[in-house]
């Protein structure tokens, strides 16, 4: 106080203070599964899915804006609203969906830890249990916010994709042309990867996390115009990073026909920039992104569930006071670590599959959100506009259709 004299500077600080929830949420979406998915999109299908990314960016912006609006208008978290408006049974359904999706993503992130440490020659039987124990300790006992910053710093490694992309010199004309030409291959691999790309960009987890962090910040309707900038900018920014990952892997890996089956192959895309250090650089970033998500995801899951059902929650409580809170939290971490330790698992396979699962589950949460944001008794005069509803329903219908295609395709193959 009293030190910030310049008025314009002050205003900037104020805006920066509001901006953040959206940006952090989108960045957190670029976790191990996200990186693996985007890298696979580029490496396996070149530029063919860029148009999808462009469309998802619109959907993401609309969805995040809905979250922000709900948060400032109601001052409540998403799970609160679902419980109060839809009753126990549907809440239970939503929470099971959230739990499964998040649990999957968490497994993917432990796979990310395993894969990144293997790049440094450390076996997963050492790295995974260590990270699990460390996370449990740091969240419950230690100073989490400082640790978080360290891991966040690690993830900046992925900005190297932007530099790499320019070093690798893609033909921008082709890139932009492909970006505006929708293409679909009607085979399982393509559709699954596509759903995975949606699933890692629009995750069920993000909807809960973003809304809670805006509520926690105590933003009100007056701050809404700034928060809108935050969510729109971060949707563009987050997907811009994804865009560069896809283009980089397309130009380096797809061109050479390299399929991503392990982390080393995924790291190859960074070779133009980092040369022989590519795998070290990639490993560091992957480790940071995974470690960050391993802490945030179980925590936000258990918060959402306990909030919805009224269980005692919060890290201020002793274990005895909040057994369900700590139980879910520790259970998720331990169980997912154990799953990753199963021998002979394809780590990249896990990372991709869990994002695909999240993608298939995200419409469930989205439907809850659209109904909520259209309810007058919840949103008052701030209900959805027609355009917003159209965009969101198209997104939902699109993902649902793709998921149905995946499920019935084996049947059709058998019948034909």
């Amino acid at each position, binding site marked *: 106080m009293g030190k910030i004299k310049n008025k314009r500077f002050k205003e900037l600080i104020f805006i920066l203070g509001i901006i953040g929830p959206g940006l952090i949420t989108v960045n957190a979406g670029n976790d191990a599964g996200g990186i693996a998915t985007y890298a696979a999109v580029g490496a396996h299908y070149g530029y063919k899915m860029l148009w999808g990314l462009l469309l998802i960016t619109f959907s993401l912006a609309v969805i995040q804006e809905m979250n922000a609006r709900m948060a400032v208008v*109601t001052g409540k978290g998403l799970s*609160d609203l679902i419980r109060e408006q839809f009753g126990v049974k549907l809440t239970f359904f939503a929470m099971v969906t959230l739990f499964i999706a998040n649990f999957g993503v968490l497994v993917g992130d432990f796979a990310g830890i395993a894969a990144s440490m293997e790049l440094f020659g450390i076996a997963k039987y050492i790295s995974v249990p260590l990270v699990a124990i460390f996370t449990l300790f740091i969240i419950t006992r230690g100073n989490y916010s400082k640790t978080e910053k360290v891991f966040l710093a690690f993830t900046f490694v992925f900005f190297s994709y932007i530099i790499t992309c320019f070093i690798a010199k893609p033909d921008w004309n082709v890139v932009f042309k492909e970006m505006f030409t929708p293409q679909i291959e009607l085979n399982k691999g393509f559709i699954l990867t596509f759903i995975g790309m949606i699933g890692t960009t629009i995750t069920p987890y993000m909807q809960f996390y973003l809304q809670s962090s805006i*509520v*926690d910040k*105590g933003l009100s309707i007056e701050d809404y115009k700034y928060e809108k900038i935050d969510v729109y900018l971060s949707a563009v920014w987050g997907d811009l990073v994804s865009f560069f990952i896809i283009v980089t892997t397309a130009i380096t890996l797809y061109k050479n026909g390299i399929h991503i089956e392990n982390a080393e192959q995924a790291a190859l895309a960074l070779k133009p920039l980092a040369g022989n250090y590519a795998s070290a650089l990639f490993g560091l970033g992957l480790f940071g992104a995974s470690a960050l998500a391993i802490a945030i995801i179980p925590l936000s899951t258990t918060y959402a569930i306990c909030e919805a059902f009224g269980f005692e929650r919060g890290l201020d409580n002793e274990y005895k006071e909040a057994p369900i809170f700590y139980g879910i939290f520790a259970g998720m971490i331990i169980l997912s670590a154990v799953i990753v330790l199963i021998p002979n698992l394809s780590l990249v396979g896990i990372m991709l599959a869990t994002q695909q699962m999240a993608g298939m589950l995200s419409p469930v949460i989205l439907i809850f959100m659209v109904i909520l944001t259209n309810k007058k008794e919840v949103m008052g005069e701030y209900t959805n506009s027609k355009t917003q509803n159209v965009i969101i329903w198209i997104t939902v219908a699109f993902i649902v259709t793709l998921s149905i295609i995946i499920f019935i395709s084996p049947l059709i193959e058998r019948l034909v």
Partner: protein
Amino acid sequence: MERVKGCYVSYVLGAPVYDTTDIFLGKLNDLIVTSDEHLPSVEGIRIKNRDALREIAFKSLSIFRKGNKYKIIVDNYFEYKRVENYYSLSNDILDKQIVDINGRRVVRVNDLRLAEIGASYKVVAVDIGFRGLLRRLGILDFTEIILSRFNRRLGDSLIIWDNVEPIKGQIDRLTLSMPYKKLKSLHPADIADILEELDAKYRSDIFKTFDTRLAADTLEEFEDEYQTDLVENIDAALAKEIFENMPNDEIADILEDVDEEHVEKILEKMDKEDAEEIKELLEYEEDTVGSIMTTDYIAFNFEKTVDEVIKELRETKPSSEIAYYLYVVDDDGRLLGVVSIRDLIVSPGDSKLKEIMKSNVIYVKDSDTLDDLTELVTKYELLAIPVVDENKVLVGMAILNDIVDEVLLPRWKKILKRSA
């Protein structure tokens, strides 16, 4: 069929409703209760018949059960006209947050217990537990059978209605004669604990209904981040009124993290002298004595007599906290000495302060660190210590209470957390 004296709301929601001549009226959609009485009593019901909803009142209502099937029979029913103090259980209470006054926490209503008292069914308890949740989900029996195999039982978590204060709806729909009476009767520290658990919006809505005295006391008890939040969410005029009930050092503490434009607006509205003081307090660096000192202290000129001083004290009636010591200053406000209330009482009325004061007074500088301060206070076992600026002009005092609250407690918490 057997008539039941009590049951859970979840059992009867959706149950068929008949009149006494066994004509089917519809399915129970909601129960309407009045809040006039001590316990909410069921006055009307909403029934659903082929998608059409209507509300009826009745002369008497009976709940019957056979095995797991429930059935409701109403006698002498008529169209229900809602009056002022009503709410519906499923719509307004079930699934909402409520304050458990005795447990001092916020919980969710999983189910409600009805019991027949006198001539009507009343809400007697709220189920906030796991059993209620499973019952609502329709898997309670199943779960209990499984658990009984392992010789385990689920405990009930009911809280009696007396200890409950609904939050939702209270502001817009439920108008009790004294809103939040129960909540307000708690200690401000407990109120703050409860409010901290609530949604941000409820928190500030409820906070705004407090009178300024209670608002001030509660605000002091909040954790820092909630203080900032609340102050930013109330308008400057209300903030000013609340702050009139608080010492300036507390206000400065709270304003430290509040958005600067908002601070300016509040200060503009405040008394000029107070505003100046708060501004000065805000300028102090975080780890200095100045940042935690209070500017409410008692000082007298060294030429004053004991009688004059006592007379003045009777008029100004200072709070006990700041009357531990009376400081003696010269014409330029420089600290000369200290007298205690005891010294005043035992001395002759016409003696001057400079004659009875202790002149080897222990003091700190406003720019000294908090570590220096704690060391002095503990070494000399002081209740309060005067604070001077670089010219030895008295600018405030640091009180043991504040030192414990703002320096020692946070440190202990950190240490405890680390060693736990």
